[in-house]
């Protein structure tokens, strides 16, 4: 099994993501730099970490979505390789159009940094199979632009297709329909604002994020 974490200039959760993947998978993920032209061959899983890629210039995630490595990431996602984008990684995935919608400035204008309760809406995906549907988990958020927006018809469609992975139990940022994380149509791309990699061991104050990595790594065993 081969996993990778992509680092953009301004990423700051790439190491936490790397450690989470290493601890759960037992193997060191490959570190990929944004300027690399290609991803390493044979990747089974790609993570886009949180942070402030390119200083959030233009719009959060907009510059990173157009960086050289993202062409390879989009191609891999289209081949079915699982891709997880957390926080800024989620913003990059929407800007790269791998996921619908956009992440706008938080409704209250404030940067939010605290642990929030999330409801697991879809426990049938490769990212969420170790959770129970309807379960409430505690995961930290840390973002300024996490206010999920999509048009009504798009929201109806993704809800109808079971593509809302997580909802906020208490809407902390104004996201439409309390959406905290969504899947693509095929189910191999997940974007979420909360940080599961910051909750993988008791010393983090909680370990509810660990099962996300166990789910996806478990789905790859034998790969």
């Amino acid at each position, binding site marked *: 099994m081969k996993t990778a974490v992509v680092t953009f200039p301004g990423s700051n959760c790439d190491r936490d993501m790397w450690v989470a993947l290493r601890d759960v998978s037992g193997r060191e993920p490959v570190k990929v730099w944004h300027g690399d032209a290609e991803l390493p061959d044979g990747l089974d899983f790609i993570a886009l970490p949180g942070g402030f890629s390119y200083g959030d210039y*233009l719009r959060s995630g907009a510059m990173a979505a157009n960086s050289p490595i993202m062409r390879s990431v989009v191609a891999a996602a289209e081949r079915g390789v699982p891709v997880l984008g957390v926080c800024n990684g989620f913003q990059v995935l929407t*800007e790269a159009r791998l996921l619908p919608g956009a992440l*706008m*400035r*938080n409704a*209250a*204008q404030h940067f939010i940094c605290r642990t929030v309760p999330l409801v697991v809406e879809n426990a049938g995906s490769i990212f969420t199979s170790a959770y129970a549907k309807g379960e409430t988990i505690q995961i930290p958020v840390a973002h300024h632009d996490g206010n999920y*927006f999509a048009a009504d018809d798009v929201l109806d469609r993704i809800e109808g297709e079971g593509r809302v992975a997580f909802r906020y139990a208490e809407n902390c940022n*104004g996201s439409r329909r309390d959406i905290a994380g969504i899947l693509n149509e095929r189910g191999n791309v997940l974007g979420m604002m909360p940080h599961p990699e910051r909750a993988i061991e008791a010393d983090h104050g909680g370990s509810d994020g660990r099962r996300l990595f166990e789910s996806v790594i478990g789905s790859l065993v034998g790969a």
Partner: protein
Amino acid sequence: MKVRIHVSLKPGVLDPQGRAVHHALDGLGFKGVDDVRIGRLVEMEVADDTSDEALDEMCQKLLANMVIENYRIEKVAA
């Protein structure tokens, strides 16, 4: 050729920044402001033969996020 790209939020998309600025204007005593929406202005110097199609493509691929934003292209007389 100088080109200004005006990027604005689509109607119906809530603008928390605009609302906060509206509130601040109100606090400063400016009455009669009905609505405030915050956008972005991109000024570019481009080759004179740059096509409208190319400008549209720049806006749609990068300068605006078409999920939430509209854009207007203004060519500025030299």
